[in-house]
């Protein structure tokens, strides 16, 4: 009986977790979308016709079960990479993504070498 109860709650827990992960936060997407006809405003901040339409489209796609990536891919296909504030990693911008890590690692190596040199003295 105990085992059955444990299995029941484990399955229930899994279902709850899956339900939570599958729900997409539309506001998060709106904040990462640029309003193309506004000055420095995201779709979330803007009340322009364009922003309102994009909000409707994004909500429709969420209701249709599309993933966050599919929604971004669709909008990038129609409006270009410029529509997103946080562009995805690709061969054009990979240096910008990797640079902070490179600087961090090289900086760490320099600091380490300096300390080592000081210790040797």
């Amino acid at each position: 009986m105990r085992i059955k109860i444990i299995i029941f709650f484990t399955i229930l827990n899994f279902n709850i977790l899956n339900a939570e992960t599958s729900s997409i936060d539309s506001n998060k997407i709106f904040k990462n979308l640029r309003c193309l006809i506004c000055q420095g405003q995201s779709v979330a901040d803007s009340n322009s016709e364009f922003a309102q339409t994009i909000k409707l489209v994004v909500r429709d796609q969420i209701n249709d079960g599309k993933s966050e990536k599919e929604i971004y891919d669709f909008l990038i296909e129609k409006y270009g990479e410029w529509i997103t504030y946080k562009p995805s990693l690709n061969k054009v911008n990979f240096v910008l993504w990797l640079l902070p890590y490179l600087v961090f690692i090289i900086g760490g190596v320099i600091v380490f070498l300096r300390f080592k040199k000081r210790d040797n003295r």
Partner: protein
Amino acid sequence: MQKKIIKLFILLLIVFVIGVFFIGLNKNSIYDTKGLVGQKITEIKLDHFSKNKIITVKDLSKNNFTLINFWASWCGPCRDEHPILLKLNKEKNLKLLGVNVKDKKNNALEFLKDFGDPYDDLARDELGKHSVNFGIYGIPESILINQDLIIIKKFIGPISKNDYNYIKDTVRKQ
């Protein structure tokens, strides 16, 4: 040796930062439609303005060229381009598909009654959602496509005389 590495690293970092600024400041940050040209329109589902019918890609592939024009009665610049659309309607190889965006039906009909109806087919996009499929972000905008449904050119804003000449030359070459 170690000092040389540090100096080289700092130098490379400075060059990189200057490079990023140089490219970033010279890059045109205004949205353009270069990416759309050459793309194929794969799916269209537009409600017909007056008939109980859905306009699909099949309807467009019947025409040699189609100019999809997004307009509304409340849009001022749409009135400016209207005489050009009426002229384009006379081109044999070109069909005009009007998409009435976020408009009241009666106002749209009145607009066409007052200024003339250049469209071979008229669709309605009440909420503007279908226009997103065409990368539309304001009206008026127009898209010239060929029989293979490839986007030849996108016109942002009202169609100018130059645009008219371009469309005329393109469709007559066929």
